[in-house]
């Protein structure tokens, strides 16, 4: 089944500590008045300008196998391949904050408001990432309701470009999902427009299927190590 979601501005909880952490700022840091002002302005600009949308389409394991194979460039061993076979439900997804926020960031930079542009970009990046969590939570609630509230069911998102799933995998994903319907396009180099967009697959199943050892060869150079937090949150 295919569905489109319009997120409200306050659906995305702008977790201040997490946003500051993404800028390399520790929670206990003392911030200047200027910083606080710029941060406050960025949050209210975000709330005014975000036009967040998402699209999902359920997909069978066998069909996803083909999508996942993509152009044959994935790492030979990777977590997604280990996980999706164990899933009870799969859905392709794409989410976006829309183009206006990035246009505003560019405008701020062009006007010399570098600090405000940087802050709005950072808040938007955080929010785009959160949208993929939100769309996974939506599916989790739907599936749990349908399966009379199974508490062990967990839905997590996985994206091309991460964890051994090659970024070129987005081409096949776009062919099947068609997120153009919510305004997301893919260029030849696999860059999505609007820039604040995320694509991938939602994998539903028992929480345990999402647990793995992050000791793949490519983990050595991974800068995000985002699997650690995701697995911690499963508990």
């Amino acid at each position, binding site marked *: 089944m295919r569905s489109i979601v319009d997120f409200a501005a306050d659906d995305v909880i702008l977790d201040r500590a997490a946003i500051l952490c993404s*800028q*390399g*700022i*520790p929670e206990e*840091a003392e*911030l*200047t008045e*200027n*910083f606080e002002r*710029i*941060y406050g302005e960025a949050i209210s600009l975000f709330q005014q300008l975000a036009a967040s949308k998402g699209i999902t389409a359920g997909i069978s394991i066998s069909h996803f196998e083909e999508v996942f194979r993509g152009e044959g460039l994935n790492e030979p061993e990777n977590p997604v391949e280990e996980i999706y076979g164990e899933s009870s439900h799969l859905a392709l997804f794409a989410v976006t904050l829309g183009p206006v926020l990035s246009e505003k*960031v*560019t405008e701020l*930079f062009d006007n*010399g*408001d*570098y*600090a405000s*542009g*940087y*802050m709005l*970009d950072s808040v938007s990046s955080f929010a785009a990432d959160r949208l993929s969590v939100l769309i996974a939570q939506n599916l989790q609630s739907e599936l749990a309701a349908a399966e009379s509230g199974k508490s062990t069911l967990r839905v997590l998102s996985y994206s091309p*470009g991460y964890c051994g799933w090659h*970024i*070129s995998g987005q081409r096949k994903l776009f062919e099947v999902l068609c997120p153009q319907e919510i305004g997301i396009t893919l*260029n*030849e*180099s*696999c*860059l999505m*427009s609007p*820039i604040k967009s995320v694509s991938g697959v939602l994998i539903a199943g028992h929480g345990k299927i999402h647990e793995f050892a992050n000791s793949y060869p490519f983990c050595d*150079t991974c*800068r995000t190590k985002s699997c650690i937090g995701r697995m911690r949150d499963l508990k």
Partner: protein
Amino acid sequence: MELLDRISENLQNGFDETVVQLTEDAVEKQIPPEEILSDGLIVGMNIVGEKFKNHDIFLPDVLLAARAMNGAMEILKPLLIKEGIPVRGKVVIGSVKDDLHDIGKNLVAILLKGAGFEVIDLGNDVPAEKFISAAKEENAHVIGMSALLTTTMPVMKKVVDLAKDEGLFGKVKIIVGGAPVSKEYALEIGADAYSYDGANAVETVESFFPANSR
């Protein structure tokens, strides 16, 4: 407080309009432009840099100071040129072909300007040939390239190869950066350097000009 100290102090606090006003006052008072630059603006910028390194302030504070610095430089640049004082170095920078993400590149450009370099920003989606032609036209000392995804990184190699073909290699330093880029990749394609963030980019570009460094 002396005028140049006030310039430095206001710059540290990111009060760009005041810095521009005080710079105009200093010029009017016949303070030599290189003195306004070195004893006012650069003193302030160095303190900002130190505080940033010590995590007493963060990037938005640095960017406010950089905006103030750039505003003051608009006034001083023509005067410095008139007096024959050489610019610190010229950098041509851009995000490579097909790459529409430019925040990282913008930050590097702003911080380089703040450190006194002349920066020609080619924007994003810049073809390899454009980096080379701009570097030639502008007599640039450095080419800087940014990429967000591994899929756009190959353009960086194309620029390095073109620079070799066009006899720029060795004359123009090439520095690369962006989320998926690494030191190893820079070495592999024959670029001169890689930087992981804006502050490191400034230090690295400064190291290209040892005699010129402050």
